[in-house]
């Protein structure tokens, strides 16, 4: 009995520590970039819900030991996501995906797959255990309604090569063009996610995981078949291009 209590206590401590680390890193990343365009973009980003701007201003308030009294359960939940994905879903942490503007259904599929274990990620698989499935709908709706921010690349040559791959594929290895499924401007839909402005490092990681089969929740296995035909350099190029890709007018 005593032993059980101890292990529970340990788990709680671990969770608290994990959350603290997450928010500290988010806060740190924001401070780091405070003079840069990214941060001003985030600040200027439309935040239809008042909660979102509150989160941006005071990420420390989300620590479990000091809950903000005024927050609704949904707003509180959003803070959990915001730590890694930013309040408006435009994560500025390179390894984390931008969720803003993803199709609602696509987000739902990913949340459910993380919950069931069909998609795994060290952080996300742990965090998702704290979120009830009943909350998925509102979260998906919120992030799909945010506007996707586009990045600026300092590697024009890589962007140019990436554009070629995005639009024409790779002829030698017969890798199909990205725009075949994701749309000519990478807008995506429920089956194939929006690629515009996505963090390049995140895209490279996903392509690598699809190639190895570590990630296998792609629609009809198509992404795995494509990623197998891309090498590391091509992945880096196409990811860099996507980060700069704008939605067609």
């Amino acid at each position, binding site marked *: 009995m005593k032993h059980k209590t101890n292990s529970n206590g340990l788990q709680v401590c671990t969770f608290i520590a994990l959350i603290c680390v997450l928010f500290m890193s988010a806060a740190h990343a924001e401070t780091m970039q405070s003079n840069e365009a990214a941060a001003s973009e985030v600040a200027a980003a439309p935040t239809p819900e008042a909660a979102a701007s509150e989160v941006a201003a005071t990420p420390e308030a989300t620590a479990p030991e000091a809950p903000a009294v005024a927050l609704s359960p949904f707003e509180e939940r959003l803070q959990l996501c915001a730590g890694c994905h930013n309040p408006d879903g435009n994560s500025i942490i390179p390894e984390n995906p931008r969720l803003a503007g993803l199709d609602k259904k696509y987000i739902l599929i990913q949340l459910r797959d993380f919950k069931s274990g069909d998609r795994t990620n060290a952080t996300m698989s742990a965090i998702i255990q704290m979120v009830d499935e009943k909350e998925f709908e509102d979260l998906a709706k919120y992030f799909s309604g945010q506007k996707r921010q586009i990045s600026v690349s300092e590697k024009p040559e890589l962007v140019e090569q990436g554009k070629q791959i995005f639009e024409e594929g790779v002829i030698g290895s017969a890798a*199909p*063009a990205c725009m075949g*499924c994701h749309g*000519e401007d990478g807008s995506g839909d429920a089956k194939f996610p929006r690629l515009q402005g996505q963090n390049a490092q995140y895209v490279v990681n996903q392509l690598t995981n699809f190639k190895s089969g570590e990630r296998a929740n792609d629609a*009809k296995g198509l992404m795995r078949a494509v990623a197998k035909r891309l090498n590391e350099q091509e992945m880096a190029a196409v990811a860099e291009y996507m980060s700069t890709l704008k939605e067609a007018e």
Partner: protein
Amino acid sequence: MKTILSTVIVLLFGLQAAVAEAADAYVPKVYGKKGYVWDEMTPERVQVLKQKGDPVNGKEAFRGCQGCHKSDAAGVREGVYPRLSGQHASVLIKQITEIRAGIRKNPKMLPFVQDPAISVQEIGDIAEYLSTLTSYRENGKGPEDLSAKGEKLFMTNKCYTCHGKHGEGNAEKSYPVVAAQHYGYLIREMNLIRTGVRGNSNPDMVKAISGFKQSDMDAVADYLSRLPDYRTVNATPNPALVVPESSSAAK
């Protein structure tokens, strides 16, 4: 010899596993191997032909193909990927099911037509959708106009027996439309068919082009690539647009 034989046997079993569950007893036979029957009605092909293809579903299922064949199914001008728009549904069904069955060797395409990329139902849906589609991108033609020589070869070797005088093929017999196909693709496939590498060569065609020099294939390919879309040749005027004689006389 024994090892080769056992490798072939292992391969055949592997291919068999890839065939749909309905085709349990089916073993694909490839051109050049004993027992090869051209245009064999494989169980899966029979199944697809029995179903009614839905072009709306087909358009959605075709999205996974667009990365190579483009959104208007025009393929690539250089001929790396063929033009599929306006191709007979029966031809598309034959080729897709034969690629899935391992009869036609197409490792580039295989992962995108295998389960789970497309289902048996979607084969017919995609074929139905493509057969009525018109590409807005132009097809690739030869570097110089060899159509006079190409036409002569096409006629004297009686290629039209199967492919039609306008390169329109034959939907009923699953002979493909070759008019307005990419020059590069036509040359590549002629070579693959003649050497048997394609896996599903028609022995009659192998015979018909066996005497062709490379320059002859270039000429035939150039001729076919310059033919208009067969549908514009065979188009019957839309009755709604035909001006009645009386009204034209009144003018």
